[in-house]
């Protein structure tokens, strides 16, 4: 189960990273239509994946995500913990 969470988290992190990077690029290139299309498409893919992740493993956003009972936001692990994260080092 945790393996699956980490796999989803890895996919989501990859999409979100592309969105962060394109966001900064678009800040100084607001008329780059291709980059904007790419950005919109990545954000939509990430949103779909994020909803799925949240249904399975609980809220990702403070005060923007809904929660099952009981309040799941407080659930461990938190992002700074070893158990939370997926492994990237040594992978190519």
């Amino acid at each position, binding site marked *: 189960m945790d393996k699956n969470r980490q796999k989803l*988290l*890895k996919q*989501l*992190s990859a999409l*979100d*990273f592309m969105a*962060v*990077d394109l*966001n*900064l*690029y678009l*800040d*100084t*290139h*607001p008329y780059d239509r291709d980059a904007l299309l790419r950005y919109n498409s990545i954000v939509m893919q990430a949103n779909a994946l994020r909803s799925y992740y949240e249904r399975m493993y609980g*809220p*990702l*956003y*403070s*005060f*923007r995500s809904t929660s099952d009972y009981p309040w799941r*936001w407080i659930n461990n692990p*938190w*992002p*700074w*913990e*070893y158990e*939370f*994260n*997926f*492994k*990237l*080092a*040594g992978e190519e």
Partner: protein
Amino acid sequence: MWIYEKKLEYPVKIKNPNPKMAKYIITQYGGPDGELAASLRYLSQRFSMVTPQARATLNDIGTEELAHLEIVGSMVRQLMDDVSIEEIKESDLGAYYADHDKAVYPISAAGNPFTAAYIQSKGDPVTDLYEDMAAEQKARSTYEWLINLADDPDVIEPLKFLRAREVVHFQRFGEALRIVQDKLAEKKFYVKKPE
């Protein structure tokens, strides 16, 4: 406002604690060229930026730096995890432990607590953007020295990610500077009224 997202921008999964490395890496948490200084600098300077592109760039890079602060804090915490008192005494971390146990505190590698004197917010967008470009280069160099000090791939990978982001930020600030300079030239617009 800010919304917290319960994940890291880049994963930190360090199997082998290393208190020496924690003492070095903490400099990117609270040191002169660290992520706290970076976020505070850009998020403060954005109020006096003059073009939409420059405002957005300062706002969004300042925000990303907060995510980097969290990555560095996570690295420090995991590097100190389960470290015994003997290991702390053997490493350089004894003085830090005396003041903070294994808590994460904004301090430089040399032990200086964080200070706002690390940053400027000058009211002149050209001046500020030059500072920002220099700051990104200083952070990039620091990550390179930290990579030189590290030998564990679990530590090196996130450092390489953070280093690469400094290069991108430098590029974006350079573009924002050019946009600001073009605007100031074309509009005969003065940030400060000439006497």
